């Protein structure tokens, strides 16, 4: 350390007398604090992963993956939940992606910038912050009861679609905003219509950002429990769903159920379920990164 720099002959001159000692110390202290913050976050994640691995890895067996929920921990399996979650995600993608991306394209590329669109924008941001249980209530009233879809995959998927649509809209709009106007002007300048410009140039350029945002929205949806409990998803489903109107269960619901049970054996089962869920989440995030890197190659200069 050159802590004595202040007392030594300095290259500072004239009216400028900066206290080098204080400047350097504050800088170092701040860096250490920031490192601690990072370390705390990482440590929490590590403890969580180790804890879950210890309690759950012995339960990760083939019969657990292929089995049905049971009141006996040694026979309990996650298969209907796993399939239910996959069905839910598939159907949610079908509803939420076209609607969310469409809304974002309209708001960003076509809508006039006036008070009404500003109002809509504000409310989309608000929607993104609404607690998920409120969406569950909405789903129960609207999809389960009013439309009469019952406690089906369809009702669940529509509820989750509502939940993640604001997130998809926000992510897509950010990605569209990042596309430079010079590209739009180039396309419009050679006689392209707005629609051709968006379809042929803006969307491909925005694709990596959009995909990343969409997949992250789905990572949120995959772990949602509250809205599914609210619309009354079942726990004891003994067969995998075969269609969108079938009753269903999902992984987070099973995990919640197992974790609540008094028998010790279910802790292992819950741990194994969490591991599967985490593996699924990590896989989705990995796909997001891969897609971003793949499309990012033909980036704009």
């Amino acid at each position, binding site marked *: 350390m050159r802590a004595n720099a202040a007392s030594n002959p300095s290259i500072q001159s004239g009216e400028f007398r900066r206290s080098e000692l204080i400047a350097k110390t504050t800088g170092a202290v701040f860096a250490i604090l920031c490192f601690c913050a990072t370390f705390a976050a990482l440590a929490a994640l590590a403890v969580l992963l180790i804890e879950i691995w210890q309690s759950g890895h012995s339960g990760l067996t083939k019969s657990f993956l292929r089995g049905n929920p049971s009141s006996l921990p040694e026979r309990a399996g996650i298969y209907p939940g796993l399939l239910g979650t996959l069905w839910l995600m598939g159907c949610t993608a079908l509803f939420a992606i076209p609607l969310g991306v469409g809304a974002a394209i309209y708001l960003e590329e076509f809508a006039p*910038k006036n008070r009404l669109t500003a109002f809509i924008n504000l409310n989309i941001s608000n929607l993104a912050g609404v607690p998920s249980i409120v969406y569950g209530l909405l789903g129960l009233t609207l999809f389960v009861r009013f439309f009469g879809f019952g406690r089906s995959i369809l009702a669940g998927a529509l509820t989750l679609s509502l939940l993640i649509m604001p997130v998809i809209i926000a992510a897509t709009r950010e990605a569209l905003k990042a596309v*430079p106007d*010079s*590209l*739009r*002007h*180039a*396309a*419009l*300048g*050679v*006689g*392209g*219509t707005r629609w*051709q410009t968006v379809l*042929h*140039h803006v969307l*491909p*350029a925005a694709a990596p950002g959009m995909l990343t945002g969409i997949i992250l929205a789905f990572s949120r949806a995959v772990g949602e429990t509250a809205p599914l409990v609210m619309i009354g998803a079942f726990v004891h489903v003994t067969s995998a769903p075969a269609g969108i109107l079938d009753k269903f269960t999902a992984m987070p619901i099973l995990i919640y159920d197992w974790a609540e049970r008094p028998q010790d054996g279910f802790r292992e089962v819950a741990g194994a379920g969490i591991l599967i869920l985490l593996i699924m989440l990590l896989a989705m995030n990995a796909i997001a990164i891969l897609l971003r890197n793949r499309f990012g190659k*033909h*980036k*704009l*200069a």
Partner: protein
Amino acid sequence: MTMFTTEPKSSISSREKALEKKDVASAQGKLSARDVSIYYGSTAAIRNVTLEIPERKVTAIIGPSGCGKSTLLRAFNRMNELVGDVRLTGQVLLEETDIYAPGVDPVEVRRRIGMVFQKPNPFPKTIYKNVAWGPKINGYRGNMDELVEDCLRRAALWDEVKDKLNKSGLELSGGQQQRLCIARALATRPEVLLLDEPASALDPISTACIEELLDQLKNELTIAIVTHNMQQAARVSDHTAFLYVGELVEFGATEQLFTKPKLKRTEDYITGRFG
């Protein structure tokens, strides 16, 4: 001439206007602005400009930064309206058609009046697709390969890229990218080419290349170029318009305007006394 039936209500005195008229009266305007004012919100960026861009000639628009020359240029192919709160009064005519008349499709206007921008902005696609996209979406029925080759030749780029048409347009150098943008603009067979400081981001050699290119292109189409480089305007243009704070100060043959400017303000600007 019928084109001067409406007397512009400019703050520039009518005597000065009269001087202008005489010069321009001889030229047939391919593109003309008639008493055009352009407002950003409530601020006027262009005030009562009347200007004839003669056919198959290069017309330079010069003036200090912020005088509205780019705004005026963009008004010629309705690019201003993409920016948002921009309003235009007066008429902009392509031959006899008012391009701002209701019912005129801005998309068709932009096909017939091409534009090259200040910063090279090729599509992040192959060189071939950069040129072919415009004609393709405009329903071009001819031989696309021939059209692409023809446009790249006319943009003096063919020899440099003929072996890598499937490489990305972004892999080219800045000067090549700008020529690619010119080829792209030529591909929709425009009658007028607007260039907004096309060489300001380029090195002197690329700049010379573009200037030479303009000299050839003016045999086939009408060119309007905005530049803040007066030497460039003197080199490439046949006519020059000098714009100052949103008003057209003087318009005339380039040689006359640079050697014997009629107005004191023009002289002060081109001799570097301000701007």
